[in-house]
């Protein structure tokens, strides 16, 4: 007979789990099997934001949670999932939470459609920039491959394999500015294609809030001028002259735009759509960092890559955003099929948006006004931003690899929860009620449990001593 502590089946298991909310009750036990679960053993509760384990006296609160949004247990075809350590179990819950990502938001704005004379939308015919692979991208792809290798080696029921996300060489990090600019360019193009060409003023207001937020982010990152000029240069003046562009985007341009000295320059149209009217240097130092995620949760991913991040198939109504992409990478980086250079560039873009605020608060010399006018400061800024961005991203990526079956489960979480929006009332569950307790069994119960379960309801005319339970 195996001593319980040596039993390989004695593992940390999930009693109940709300994977979208990151809340879980865990206990170290053998699989429950077909017997009633033993509730009288200690359990642990974890929840965001810090997932610190909190001991509980019993498993009862955890099982009680299964009447709401918590699922009972976690199973694979092979049986109930177990983790070798509490740290592994918590890491899994944490990664499940991150997988869910951007669902609180209404998603990306705008409706993809054409404008006057069938132009606009996809008919803008702007091709996404070609992104050549470079040393930084190779380095990121390399560490993801290393993670995938660890997933292949991990075993169910054994300690997960720890992974480190080593920083790319300094020379490789110098490539980050180019990748950030390419990501910014792709996002601006996507926003242009989502412009409400035939929409109402309300549609434009919704679109412009996101466009101006993106413009400001690009400014903070010191990328605005590069991105604006690069996108403007992509319009073919023979097919889409500035005058036609102005007609297409008229909803977002000031009246009398034709009198603007630069009205015949595409960059001027882009500037007015994304930044100029709201250019306020004092606003570039973000006062409220909490809004950042709601902004990243509204930058739509380029159409060509969006489908691999969309949750829920027919239920997935929200278009994937930069925040969706970040969430997927931080949850299950090895499970993103066909991830390419632009995916990794957008991951860096999201990370840079997070870290740039701290950098610019740390020293005013890193703020746009200086960086845009001083090449040496810009170089220094880019170096610091690249280091800080990778350091932050590496800290968010998984610190351990699970067996591929568990990694696969993490991928399913957003799809599972996308269905809730369409959930319907359950069918009635009717079963014959349990019978009334027979007298001799009642007596046994009352003898053992006393007052707490005695039927103390007074009957008219019944003497008090007749109501008392039998003495234990």
């Amino acid at each position: 007979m195996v001593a319980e502590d040596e039993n390989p089946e004695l593992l940390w298991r999930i009693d109940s789990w709300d994977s979208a909310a990151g809340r879980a009750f865990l206990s170290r036990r053998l699989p429950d099997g077909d017997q009633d679960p033993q509730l009288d053993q200690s359990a642990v509760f974890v929840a965001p934001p810090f997932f610190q384990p909190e001991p509980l006296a019993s498993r009862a609160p955890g099982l009680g949670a299964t009447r709401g949004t918590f699922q009972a247990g976690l199973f694979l075809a092979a049986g109930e999932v177990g983790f070798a350590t509490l740290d592994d179990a918590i890491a899994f819950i944490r990664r499940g939470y991150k997988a869910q990502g951007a669902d609180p938001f209404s998603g990306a704005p705008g409706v993809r459609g054409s404008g006057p004379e069938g132009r606009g939308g996809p008919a803008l015919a702007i091709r996404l920039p070609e992104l050549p692979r470079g040393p930084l991208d190779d380095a990121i792809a390399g560490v993801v491959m290393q993670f995938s290798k660890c997933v292949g080696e991990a075993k169910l029921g054994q300690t997960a394999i720890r992974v480190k996300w080593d920083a790319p060489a300094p020379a490789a990090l110098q490539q980050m500015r180019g990748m950030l600019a390419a990501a910014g360019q792709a996002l601006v193009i996507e926003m242009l294609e989502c412009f409400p060409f035939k929409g109402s003023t309300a549609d434009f207001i919704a679109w412009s809030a996101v466009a101006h937020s993106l413009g400001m982010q690009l400014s903070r990152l010191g990328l605005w001028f590069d991105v604006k000029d690069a996108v403007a240069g992509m319009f073919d003046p023979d097919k889409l002259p500035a005058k036609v562009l102005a007609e297409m985007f008229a909803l977002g341009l000031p009246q009398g735009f034709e009198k603007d000295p630069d009205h015949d320059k595409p960059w001027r149209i882009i500037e007015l759509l994304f930044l100029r009217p709201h250019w306020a240097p004092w606003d570039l130092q973000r006062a409220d960092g909490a809004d950042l995620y709601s902004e990243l949760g509204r930058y739509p991913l380029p159409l060509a890559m969006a489908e691999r991040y969309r949750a829920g198939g027919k239920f997935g109504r929200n278009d994937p955003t930069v925040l969706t992409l970040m969430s997927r990478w931080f949850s299950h980086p090895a499970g993103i099929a066909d991830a390419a250079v632009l995916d990794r560039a957008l991951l860096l873009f999201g990370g840079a948006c997070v870290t740039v605020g701290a950098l610019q608060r740390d020293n005013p010399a890193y703020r746009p006004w200086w960086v845009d006018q001083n090449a040496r400061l810009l170089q220094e800024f880019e170096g610091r931003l690249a280091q800080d961005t990778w350091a932050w991203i590496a800290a968010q990526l998984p610190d351990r690899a699970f067996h591929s079956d568990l990694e696969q489960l993490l991928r399913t979480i957003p799809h599972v929860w996308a269905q809730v929006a369409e959930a319907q009332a359950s069918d009635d569950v009717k079963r014959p009620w349990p019978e009334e307790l027979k007298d001799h069994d009642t007596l046994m119960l009352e003898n053992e449990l006393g007052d707490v379960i005695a039927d103390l309801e007074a009957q008219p005319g019944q003497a008090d001593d007749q109501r008392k339970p039998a003495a234990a």
Partner: protein
Amino acid sequence: MSKWKTKVERAIDRLTGDHQSLRRFAEANVAAIESALEGKGPDDKARDPRAGARAVVNIASVHVPTFCQRSRNRQHPAYLNSYDLGKTKVRVGSDPPKDHWKSREIVDHALAPLHGQPMNKVYYAAAELNGAGIRFYGDVCLVLKRDEVPPETKAIDRNSYDVLRAPFSNTVEKLPDHPRQQAARRHILSALSGSFDNDLKTMGAVKVLVTTGERDRRFSTGQISGGVLDDEDYIEILKIGSFDTNGVEAARLSAAEVALEGHVEQRMQSRHPPSHEARQWLTERRAATQALADAGIDIVVVATLGRVKS
């Protein structure tokens, strides 16, 4: 005399024995607990409609926008229980093997004669006075309007899963077969139950008295509130039927969680940005409060349990 009146008398007997002065304190404290749960202040004769015990449901922030959206779209049920989620297959991983994990069915089945409805019609809530509910189940505590909970709604003086714990389980398992065990569980849960309108206040008095023990001091409102729902020890409400945002009187947030928000926000202003999941959590909290405000629901931060306010 009702079952719960008898129970509270016996609790006083056990706690005070022959000490008449302790008995007087206990009786005065029971009156105070009952008044508080009824919504009367310490010296008030009339019931304040804004005060008193309520049925509350805790929900995680991430689910609040969907609840509000389903309410807005008149999708029924707006608030989902496990049976609704099960029908939609909201489950990560495989289904449990056929004979596993029957505990919920065991308890729900034993409760069925109490409420007389199909098991899936019950939406579990907790009784709460001034606190923020059962935080484990969600960081947002939805306080249901009084008229969402009919007077005859059943309450159990503890988590009904306790029927599967010792000492109940040890006794029940002495019975040889499942039908007799279920009959015993039904009997136990019936003995632990009462009605929301008539019995809850006395049920709460027994709970607070028993957990606090003998004393020659009067309870404060905060102590009463803390005793009615103390962490994982609560009074369960078997609400029949779901509800939507129109049935919610207010949403309560605990001061502890609001302090965590402040901590994460502070990290945002520091040299070391907070983690992705901390930002995600904060963003979900904001989206939740925004959705609740859009639905016209007041948001209250529970700074102290002594507040008599919903």
